């Protein structure tokens, strides 16, 4: 169920600002990689380019052997890469079940019309991310930030990805909710899912990743085992303010 994600010499400029600066890295099948860096370092922008929501200025992105850099977002999702958003993007006026349904739909209007919703699968995904049965009929307006992040996870999972990009999945969550999402990520890792995870909560992130990539101002400054990356002088300077215990 897994695939290799490869980013090569990626550059993204917003006017005069270089948000991604000659970025290259690979996430091997079944691997889980943490992407860390201070606010504005360019983590989300990398996700947006992998998904095709922002077109890169130059560079390539591959899923397995195939270059996906020129494909539309839905076409990339069909190739097996999917993301959550830092600011959750629910459909506010439809239910949790219907939100998940949108993620489950095939990209074919004919099939949308002729085949009914898979309610069992909707329920299964909702329960897997930690919703209760009763939440299925609630609308996002009634949900907490934790629930909205769960919904992001569920809709992302619904697209049946091989590689999941998680953007600040722990932000604004309670300790209990962090545990729920962490357990889900661990379970998916055991099943062979490939992850690229952005998180400011390093304590929650550390057990979920095999290695880390640190970036600052769009540039990769360190890559390797989590403890080594965190110990790196450049990382400490840019990210941890030169010391402190994360």
């Amino acid at each position, binding site marked *: 169920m897994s695939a290799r994600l490869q980013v090569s010499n990626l550059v993204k400029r917003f006017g005069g600002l270089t948000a991604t600066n000659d970025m290259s890295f690979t996430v091997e099948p079944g691997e889980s990689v943490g992407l860390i860096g201070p606010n504005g370092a360019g983590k989300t922008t990398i996700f947006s380019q992998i*998904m095709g929501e922002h077109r890169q200025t130059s560079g390539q992105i591959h899923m397995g052997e195939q270059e996906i850099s020129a494909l539309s977002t839905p076409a990339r999702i069909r190739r097996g890469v*999917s993301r959550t958003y830092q600011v959750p993007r*629910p459909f506010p006026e439809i239910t949790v079940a219907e939100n998940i349904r*949108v993620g489950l739909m095939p990209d074919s209007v004919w099939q949308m019309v002729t*085949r009914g919703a898979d309610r069992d699968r909707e329920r299964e995904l909702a329960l897997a991310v930690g919703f209760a049965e009763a939440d299925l009929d609630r609308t996002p307006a009634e949900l907490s930030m934790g629930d909205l992040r769960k919904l992001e996870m569920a*809709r992302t999972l619904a697209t049946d990805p091989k590689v999941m990009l998680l953007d600040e999945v722990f932000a604004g969550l309670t300790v209990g909710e962090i545990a729920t999402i962490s357990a889900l990520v661990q379970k998916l890792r055991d099943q062979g899912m490939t992850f690229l995870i952005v998180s400011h909560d390093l304590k929650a992130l550390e057990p979920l990743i095999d290695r880390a990539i640190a970036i600052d101002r769009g540039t990769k400054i360190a890559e390797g085992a989590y403890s080594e990356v965190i110990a790196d002088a450049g990382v400490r300077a840019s990210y941890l303010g030169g010391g402190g215990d994360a």
Partner: protein
Amino acid sequence: MNLRWYHFAAWGALIAAMLLMPRLVDLGLMGRGTLRTMIQACYLAMFAISWDVLSGRTGYISFGHPFLIGIGAYGTAILSKKFGVPVELSIPLAVLITMIGGLVVLLPALRIKGSYFALVTLAFMELMYQLVQVIRPDLTGGTRGLSGIKTLTRGAENGYMLAVSLMLAVALGCWLLMRTRFGTALWALGQNEEAVSGSGLSTIRLKAMAFLVSAFVAGLAGAFLVHYNGSLAPRAMFDINSVFTIIVAALIGGAGTILGPVLGAFFLTFLLEWLRPFLPGAERFLVYGAVALVLYMYQPKGIYAIIEGGLKRLWGRA
């Protein structure tokens, strides 16, 4: 689609009630004039349904629906009157031309967001109004339009039965379609287009399909209306007031619900008809604007939501 017994009951009751209306005329409980007003309401209902399929859920507001209706109406009128094509063929052809022609012209506009789409559709309506007057007036009838177009029915009752059958078929078809996952996807599109794309769905394809269904209904209703009236006047057809009537009918009825626009169309048509003796001129439109506003403040989701809420309360009490 998740159909429940009360869906069947409600549709059964609606269809039975609508088809039995002419019997009220027989019994002397209703005038023939009322039946003619209901015919107008049926066509407006179809236009409002057409608008609702495209704009009610996706938030891509069409201000140019008469453009689509006009292609259907002119299409069958010209084919049948000027080229002697039998009506059984000219109507389907006109509907096809509406779908293809409309899509070719408006597909680029569907790629741009929100308010631009409204402007572009409005511009196309105006453009079409100008074009039918200057390009081949021998075919379009120019400023005066066309008359002596073959009519399909004789008398109010037949005209009503045709209009109401068409309207019910269109309403039921669209209502069922909107209950599928396609309908859910269109809701989602109106709420967060980027997230629909981020869920793996091609938004341009969803919009194009909604547009095709909308154009199908608009072309069909426009074509049948022209064969009911037997004539076609461009000034009335491409009037900004007719755009507003369609949109207001859909909005006060309840956008996105298909049945709401039908309710809205009947409400609006009868309101205008009742107001006619008191306010013969265009100021009637001001009044319906005011009524729409008051209704909107009371329940922004329209008549449909008011009725739904009432039924739920009754049900809860029983």
